[in-house]
């Protein structure tokens, strides 16, 4: 029987305590132990970005991160964007522009957009392309994703 490690972290503004196996991924921890199933497992090797979460203000591939490393950290998942008043403006813009086809990449796209807009509030097409370089939409619905990002950027930065 393997040792489990007790970790304390803040997830979407709430203190959580979990006991994890040393090699468990952050993705499996949030999905299986915290029931936060927004972050998706797709490639499992950091190539697609569907598992993107934000840890202490930095986006990461949660499939490549060890859950033990989240001890003492602040984690935001897609579930944490929504407030009682409604969707995050980025989520709303994705809905408004139909920037969703099958939807599997969407949580990762939105979390990485959150990171991008925190660094560059009004990005150019090239800056969006660079910012989302680690996220893949296999439906290839990129045009509407760009439209949604430009729209939310103009709404929030003006």
């Amino acid at each position, binding site marked *: 029987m*393997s040792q489990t490690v007790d970790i304390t972290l803040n997830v979407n503004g709430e203190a959580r305590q979990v006991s994890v196996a040393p*090699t468990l991924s952050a993705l499996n921890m949030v999905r299986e132990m915290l029931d936060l199933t927004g972050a998706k497992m797709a490639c499992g090797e*950091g190539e697609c*970005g569907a598992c993107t979460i934000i840890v202490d203000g930095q986006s990461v591939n949660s499939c490549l991160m060890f859950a*033990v490393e989240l001890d003492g950290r602040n984690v935001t998942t897609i579930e944490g964007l929504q407030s009682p008043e409604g969707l995050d403006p980025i989520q709303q813009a994705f809905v408004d522009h139909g920037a969703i086809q099958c939807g599997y990449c969407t949580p990762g796209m939105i979390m*990485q957009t959150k*990171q991008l807009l925190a660094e560059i509030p009004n990005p150019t097409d090239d800056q969006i392309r660079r*910012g989302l370089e680690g996220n893949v939409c296999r439906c290839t619905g990129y045009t509407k994703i760009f439209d949604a990002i430009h729209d939310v950027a103009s709404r929030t930065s003006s």
Partner: protein
Amino acid sequence: MTEIENYLAPTTIAEATEAMAAGGVVVLAGGTDLMLQLEGKSDGTTLMNVRRVVEMQGVSVDGNRVRIGALASVSDMMSDPVIAETAPVIAETADRFASNQIRNLATIGGNICNASPAGDMIIPLMLLDADVELSRWNGGKVETRNVPLDEFFTGPGKSVMAADELLTAVSYARPAAGFVAGFDKTGPRPALEISMVSVGVAGVRSAGGLSSPRVAYGSVGPTPVRGHKVEAAIDGQTLNDDVVAAALVAADEDVSPISDVRASDWYRRHLVRVMTQEVLNNVANG
């Protein structure tokens, strides 16, 4: 191969190396390579997360030397003021590394320890004649040795680092005035590519060329390599057509690529010539 059963999270190099002296330790830093290498099985039974070791974090200056803690992330290289001032080629290379999400996790020390022939961050550090700092527990205290990065790698995934040694930092001397450097890599797309070929060139600009040049290649042999023959061909020379032609012949001799899923030997040699000429031109002429 065994299962990971135990977990350690030391906060000092002393604690970490003492644990490694007991054997069976797998070191975790960023985890981006390790997660895929473990897949539930490993060479050790204890996972040691070194991320809380303060002495292995951040970039610092000690006299003439710049020390990059092994835990500094690839993203850190893009925003650190000391790196920007002393060796912008490190930031330039970091900007080409994987994706935002991976750069935020992956560490400089991890990229070196993984000892991939395609490890991007190794190339600019080779141009800077960097040393790696290896620490181990010996006789009740931490013993440290510095190994030139040039002599660190012995094969794919292999290095001179012993099983009980921990890579704690990489350091380089502040480059001379007039030092310039550049990096380029090739893959099918700009992001998330394991380089088919990477090239770095550096030197002090002089008389239409470079003096004390440094040339380094990735993905062209079992380890990242210095282009010693190219360096000899261009050292102090004005880069006219004859000198460049000689440098490209030398480049072909400096590399020993294989054919694999990413590119053929032939194509890699072609890329080495084209990219050497381009990076050399950019670095020497600005």
